[in-house]
């Protein structure tokens, strides 16, 4: 059984705990053991990252060093976290001076970054560590008559030469899993565009318009739901549909994280996946299992 150190990031445990619960239960069902990383810190994405590259490397470097001390690879389930950890790993592995600087700070608590732990995003676990065949054979209650749109998340797939998750221009992992679960994966205009989430801090209005543009493009394809692989994207694509700027008089499109969608097809109980907590009730999707 493969084992990973789960780094939840700051946002998921508070804003989308059902995502965390569904990651744990679905991966366990598919033969992956997770150990929650304790005593971790924020990866430093976006904010610290913008003010000091070295401080950012120290913060993400410490998270990876913690996984090294557990002798495990890291599983990150947030796009911002996985992007940060992977970028910093790349920087530390290729810049001995920077690595020595970070290690000086880590040494005070007996930690050391050596580069032995890999960082993986959830989508990689599905493709590389579980595999499509194993997922297919674990499906006991396939969906039918369901049209779903995949949203990958910018920092999950870009920059491809560093994150190495999927084809950045034509990502397919979520689409493949949608199809394996018996539903139809639907393409739409601007599939690899951002959800707008990173813009919330500087201009909430622009952030909302970007998210709603995505919703509009997806709605044109007449889909039943949107499948995500990052809690920021999931929350943003949900929240924009409640905004005053959102199109009125139309039904909201349920947005659900990939493991929460996959769970019922694997025979996992809805409540264990925290489906009752979803802001837009996904019953239109789940009754087709």
């Amino acid at each position, binding site marked *: 059984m493969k084992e990973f150190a789960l780094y939840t990031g700051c946002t998921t445990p508070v*804003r989308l705990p*059902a995502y965390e619960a569904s990651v744990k239960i679905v991966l366990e069902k598919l033969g992956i053991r997770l150990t929650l990383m304790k005593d971790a810190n924020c990866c430093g994405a976006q904010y610290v990252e913008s003010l000091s590259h070295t401080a950012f490397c120290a*913060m993400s470097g410490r998270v990876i060093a913690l996984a090294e001390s557990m002798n495990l690879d890291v599983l990150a389930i947030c796009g911002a976290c996985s992007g940060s950890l992977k970028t910093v790993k790349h920087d530390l592995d290729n810049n001995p001076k920077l690595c020595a600087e970070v290690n000086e700070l880590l040494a005070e608590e007996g930690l050391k970054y050596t580069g032995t732990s890999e960082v993986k995003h959830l989508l990689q676990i599905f493709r590389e560590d579980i595999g499509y065949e194993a997922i297919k054979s674990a499906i006991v209650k396939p969906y039918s008559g369901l049209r779903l749109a995949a949203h990958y998340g910018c920092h999950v797939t870009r920059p491809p030469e560093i994150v190495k998750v999927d084809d*950045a221009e034509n990502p397919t992992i979520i689409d493949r899993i949608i199809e394996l679960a018996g539903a139809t994966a639907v393409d739409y205009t601007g599939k690899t565009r951002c959800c707008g989430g*990173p813009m919330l801090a500087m201009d909430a209005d622009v952030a909302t318009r970007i998210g709603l543009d995505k919703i509009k493009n997806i709605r044109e394809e007449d889909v039943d739901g949107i499948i995500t692989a990052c809690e920021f994207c999931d929350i943003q694509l949900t929240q924009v549909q409640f905004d005053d700027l959102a199109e009125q008089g139309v039904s909201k499109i349920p947005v659900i994280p990939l493991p929460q969608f996959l769970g019922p097809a694997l025979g996992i109980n809805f409540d264990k996946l925290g489906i009752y907590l979803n802001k837009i009730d996904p019953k239109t999707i789940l009754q087709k299992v």
Partner: protein
Amino acid sequence: MTKNEVKEKPAVSHTPSSDFAKEVEQEYGGEGIMKCIQCGMCTASCMVASMTDRYRPRQLIQKILLGKREEVLTSDLPWLCMTCRLCEERCQEDVNLSEIFHAVREIAAREGHIPKVFQSTVDQVLEDGWLLKDAYSDFIEEDREDLGLDTDLNWNDEFVKKVKKRYLSGGNKK
């Protein structure tokens, strides 16, 4: 004109008003700025630019190349990039715009030009060790309990204080 002569002609043939582009080039992440040929592919693919006329990535790179140091560092422009990297995916010259704008932000930060929202968020993270300590209510704790998840989130707040002291107190030195 021979092939060689064409090659030697610089892409940008004006004289900048300052060495700002060279300064950015020296900063971590800013190395690729001189590769920009000002084609505008970045602005064409930018979702922020499509929603507001406040921000045009090509124009911002151009301002840097032209040497408009004060104008760039004191404006919000470098902070309006979402770092979604869609433009980088499409740039034929491999200009890493989000890295360049990070480098510019770092220079701006050293000189005290930090948008309030960035400063307050960094202050919070470097105090608590993570982003959402204040948002973690009893109500959410109950949700976690119902889902069988740990309610003690166990974040470390000591390391970030060392990071703050070393790199980000009184501006940032590195």
